[in-house]
């Protein structure tokens, strides 16, 4: 039956298999709207920033406040030490990855609530996934919102290839928000100046990498990377969020420089054409 209402693609989507590669390729055509092109997604690390307490958190809160009125920020939070503890207890008790994901979400939510209370006097809300339809309004009114970085996969979190820890955590959840909204930038605020050839906390000979493609980084097959590995994989398929920047939030001014688009920390790009 040929419908006059459906587009040609619509007709094919209804009558053909969604496992057909040619049909899938056809769905890439047409416009790709950036929903919030002026917004920056800023992820504040859990272990790297929030777990340090006021010495790290107060300055970064001040810097966020200084940028209100100049930049729009969707602020995600990491989980950190308490998530590690919960994962450790959960693994010992033979619990599956989906349950660990629920536990990690709770910790990331605690961190979001703490940042929210420190920003509350500026009218900045904390939103849960169900409140995301209000996000554009808050951003227009107050220039910032706080959300928990964990993607809301809970029991539906996929197993990692190795081990038991949820593979899609707060780096990934924040990144996916930058992609779905077509945000202007994705900035990770951590406690290192970006990417190194090895973990600088453990290896004194580690050298800094100012810019690299996701593909090059995957090919380096480092034992330890500064951002969750699935982010690098997802970047290669992304339509909008084609680069991420990792900065040291312990250095005052770095967040502002990153928001201004200056070269600071490490820029990881998707490389090639989307």
């Amino acid at each position, binding site marked *: 039956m040929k419908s006059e209402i459906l587009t040609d693609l619509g007709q094919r989507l209804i009558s053909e298999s969604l496992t057909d590669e040619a049909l899938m390729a056809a769905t890439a055509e047409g416009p790709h709207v950036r929903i919030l092109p002026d917004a920056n997604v800023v992820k504040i690390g859990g272990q790297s920033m929030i777990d340090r307490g006021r010495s790290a958190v107060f300055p970064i809160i001040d810097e966020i406040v200084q940028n209100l009125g100049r930049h729009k920020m969707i602020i995600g939070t990491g989980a950190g030490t308490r998530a590690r*503890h919960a994962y450790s207890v959960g693994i010992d008790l033979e619990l599956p990855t989906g349950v660990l994901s629920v536990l990690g979400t709770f910790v990331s939510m605690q961190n979001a609530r703490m940042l929210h209370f420190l920003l509350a006097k500026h009218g900045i809300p904390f939103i849960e996934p169900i409140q995301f339809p209000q996000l554009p309004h808050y951003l227009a009114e107050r220039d910032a919102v706080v959300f928990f970085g964990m993607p809301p996969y809970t029991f539906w979190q996929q197993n990692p290839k190795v081990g038991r820890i949820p593979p899609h955590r707060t780096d990934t959840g924040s990144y*996916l928000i930058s992609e779905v909204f077509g945000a202007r930038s994705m900035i990770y605020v951590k406690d290192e100046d970006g990417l190194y050839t090895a973990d600088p906390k453990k290896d004194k000979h580690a050298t800094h990498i100012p810019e690299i493609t996701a593909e090059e980084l995957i090919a380096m097959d480092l034992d330890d*990377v500064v951002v969750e590995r699935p982010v690098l994989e997802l970047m290669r398929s992304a339509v909008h969020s084609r680069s991420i920047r990792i900065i040291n939030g312990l250095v005052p001014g770095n967040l502002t420089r990153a928001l201004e688009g200056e070269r600071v920390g490490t820029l990881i790009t998707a490389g090639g054409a989307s």
Partner: protein
Amino acid sequence: MSTSDQRHHLNSMLMRESLLDKELMSSTERGLRVRRMLPEAHVIKIGGSSIIDRGREATFPVVDALGVLLDGDDTLLLSTGGGARTRHVFSIGIDLGLPTGVLAQLSIADALGNAHILGSLLAPWGVVAIPPEMFGHLLPLFARAVPGVIFNGDPPYSLWEHPPSVGRIPPHRTDAGTFLVAECFGCKTLTFVKDVDGIHEQDPRHHPDAPLISEIGARELQARALPQLPFDRVLLELLTHARLIDRFQVINGLHPERIAAAVRGEHVGTMVYKD
């Protein structure tokens, strides 16, 4: 405890380590079992396009077959797909330039609608569609209280759906969400009820003589790169990394007696196993 690196750590085997470290990841694998939360439950997905969209002709016999099972001792976790309405909302959303995450969020409503349709038909057995927000957390309670529950098969990925490597259709749809429930809760069987006998060498709707593949490993099936499959491709990836689910079966719901047979563990469609 407070340490020299100025961070407040809690004592645990993962403390102070980067969760991005490969060595640490492997350490969470060794010698550890995963507990099954619902080892006696059977997970059955009733296809959207393949069964419910066909209306009474296909759906009533399936409901009757499920009713017989629900009168027995088995606990059924039933899911549905979004079917034609999901395809339609995808086509409108793509035409409007909306991204994968938005398409994923929109499609949840279609599978939820079909879950409510199935729930209305199974109401005499006390089986209803559970709202997704409470399904995961309350599932063990429901599984003890009633013979079966229905959930929309979609995983709650919504805006957080992954951009696919090709095109912009959400890769984790209702087959994937159903699989992940079975895996997380360690269920006994996992069955996908479709309108074909299983996996064929070619699409049986266009090639009626295409031979049926009786059983096949997930990796082997991936390597075969068949032009189409009767389920979401991502299932093969999920099965390969599963800890608790080691197989699922794809059966033809137009022969509804095969549903009970599949739940009993009989081989009545295509068995896909972890290889």
